[in-house]
């Protein structure tokens, strides 16, 4: 059992007081920026990069990794409490988590998210330690055609995020995909829908998009409910989950963890898919799917675990091949280069202490996060007691700074206002934002993989069904689409006829 020895080496590195300190700093900063709306891990890691010059490579990477998964953690806190997802994946948590909070079960939701994430983190750490090599070959078995099929499956799954009209959910995904087309076409350099301004040359910035749709939309919805009656304080009871709650959450957590661990390994969008694939799966498996969207615990437990497991296994391609699977990983590679270490296929043999130390630190970090966050739940719940007309200007303030700081661009703030208006109108039309956000994030990837697959296959579209992997994924997507759409159409028909009588 090599991996026990290796993990032993890892923990001997991760538990050095010096590295422990940086793990704590990373987790703390990560939680803080995750909780602050609009400030993402990408920006923070970019800013802290020069700070890591002076510390040891292990400590640097441990801290940056801590920021990364700490931010995922903090992001779900605001998603649950004030319906403000810090990033695309926590948009899934926001759906049922926020409903739970409105029913006075915010404490339960936060605790389940924290414990689920911890379980997922533990399993994912073990998975990396034992299966890093085989999982790497999984990442290398996907061709562009397979990635395209995977994205299609993910998009179909994200219809499940809509709890109202399925067709409107589908329309919102397409709208998101279409908005994702804005900007320079990376294949030809053509400007698409940029309205003649260079500010849109790189597309709609996701932070401005998300802050507009979510933060501004939520604020406006809050204001419309204002009346001269005294503020109705949401009852906050049932702080910690009961045994029954935990029992209910167990199966979704386990399923989400497995799903996230596998999908996270795939570079280029794998980790992103895990949270809402898990949501779709839980909704399909649930005996009470109608509760989803109205505060279903499984809708928080599953995606949160999947998200955290995926975030962690997405380190695998970087650690075993030197290939960063997302922009945050690319920054971490940058930090290592500054330290004189170039991650590559030989990192495990060249830098065993770094490799295993970072893996072990992930578990330590997850433990720190639980210890840090469980007591904080009480504090977060106090946030709910702040009177809304004090809370919303500060949310707005944070969001504006976040939006501005991404590109130091005043134009992004105009976009934020425009998307705030659009988000509010869409809400009035019973259109839910989460499928649109996911379409927006996945759209560019979907198109890139499709076009790349087509160029490589000389325009032969059958390549998509010739490869067993993509054929299977597409078949599953098609089946899922039928399963989702049929009952909906049947039900609507019934409703129409019933009313006629």
């Amino acid at each position, binding site marked *: 059992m090599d991996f026990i020895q290796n993990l032993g080496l890892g923990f001997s590195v991760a538990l050095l007081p010096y590295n422990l300190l940086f793990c704590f700093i990373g987790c703390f900063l990560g939680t803080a920026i995750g909780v602050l709306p609009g400030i993402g891990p990408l920006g923070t890691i970019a*800013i802290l990069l020069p700070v890591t010059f002076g510390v040891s490579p292990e400590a640097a990477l441990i801290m940056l990794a801590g920021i990364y998964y700490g931010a995922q953690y903090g992001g779900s806190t605001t998603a649950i409490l004030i319906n403000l997802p810090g990033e695309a994946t926590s948009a899934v948590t926001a759906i049922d988590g926020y409903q739970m909070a409105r029913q006075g079960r915010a404490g339960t939701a936060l605790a389940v998210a924290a414990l689920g994430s911890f379980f997922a983190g533990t399993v994912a750490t073990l998975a990396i330690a034992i299966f890093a090599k085989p999982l790497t070959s999984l990442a290398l078995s996907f061709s562009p055609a397979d990635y395209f099929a995977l994205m299609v499956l993910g998009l179909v799954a994200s219809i499940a995020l809509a709890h109202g009209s399925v067709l409107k959910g589908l329309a919102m995904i*397409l709208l998101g995909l279409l908005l994702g087309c804005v900007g320079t076409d990376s294949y030809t350099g053509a400007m698409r829908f940029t309205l003649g301004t260079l500010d849109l040359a790189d597309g709609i910035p996701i932070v401005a998009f998300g802050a507009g749709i979510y933060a501004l939309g939520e604020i406006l919805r809050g204001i419309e*409910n204002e009346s001269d009656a005294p503020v109705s304080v949401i009852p906050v009871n049932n702080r910690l989950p009961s045994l029954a709650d935990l029992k209910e959450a167990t199966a979704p957590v386990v399923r989400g963890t497995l799903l996230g661990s596998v999908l996270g390994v795939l570079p280029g969008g794998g980790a992103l898919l895990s949270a809402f694939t898990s949501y779709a799966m839980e909704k399909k498996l649930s005996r009470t799917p109608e509760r989803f969207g109205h505060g279903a615990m499984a809708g928080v437990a599953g995606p949160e675990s999947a998200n955290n497991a995926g975030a962690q296994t997405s380190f695998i391609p970087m650690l075993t091949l030197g290939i960063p699977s997302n922009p945050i990983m690319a920054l971490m590679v940058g930090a290592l280069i500054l330290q004189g270490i170039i991650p590559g296929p030989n990192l495990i043999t060249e830098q065993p202490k770094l490799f295993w130390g970072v893996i072990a630190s992930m578990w330590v970090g997850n433990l720190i996060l639980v210890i840090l966050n469980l007591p904080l739940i009480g504090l977060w719940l106090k946030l709910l007691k702040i009177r809304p007309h004090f809370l919303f*200007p500060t949310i*707005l303030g944070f969001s504006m700074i976040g939006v501005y700081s991404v590109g130091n661009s005043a134009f992004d*703030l105009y976009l934020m206002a425009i998307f705030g*208006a659009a988000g509010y109108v869409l809400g009035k039309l019973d259109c839910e934002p989460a499928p649109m956000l996911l379409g927006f994030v996945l759209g560019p990837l979907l198109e890139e993989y499709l076009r790349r697959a087509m160029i490589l296959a000389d325009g032969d579209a059958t390549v998509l069904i010739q490869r067993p992997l993509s054929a299977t994924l597409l078949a599953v997507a098609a089946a899922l689409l039928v399963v989702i759409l049929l009952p*909906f159409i049947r039900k609507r028909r019934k409703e129409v006829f019933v009313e006629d009588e």
Partner: protein
Amino acid sequence: MFATYWPSRRNMVFGIVFVSFSALMAFETLRKLPIGTPANMGPGFFPLLLSISLGAISILAVVFGQSSAQEEPLKVAPFRAVALVLGAPIVFSLSIDPLGLFFAVFLSVLFSTQASIRSKIGESILLSAGFSAFCVLVFIYLLNLPLPLWGWLIAG
């Protein structure tokens, strides 16, 4: 009997907004972007595909959507509040370069507080000033973000 088949007003608006948006995008694509061939897709291929699908799905969503009989009353925030909340980012963007972070946050947050009917001006000023100071502390001194603290009008 036919009344129940009539889509709700909300769904009619949805249909009009979505179908005209997809038509606009399709039109823009056809006008400006080469479609290309499947072997070498042009920049217009994917957007055209998407806008046609969006139009089709939107029509289906109206057809299979809520009927007018199920319509719930629509609640909308007062126009003044909407303008104040959506205007805050614009105030921020206009003031960040000349005045810097502190006043940009102060002015835009103060602006937005007036959206609530419950806000009192004294409280709002206090809140905005306190929050701005907090932001300067966190973003400039703690997180070290490259944001101008005072702007060119003040610092010169």
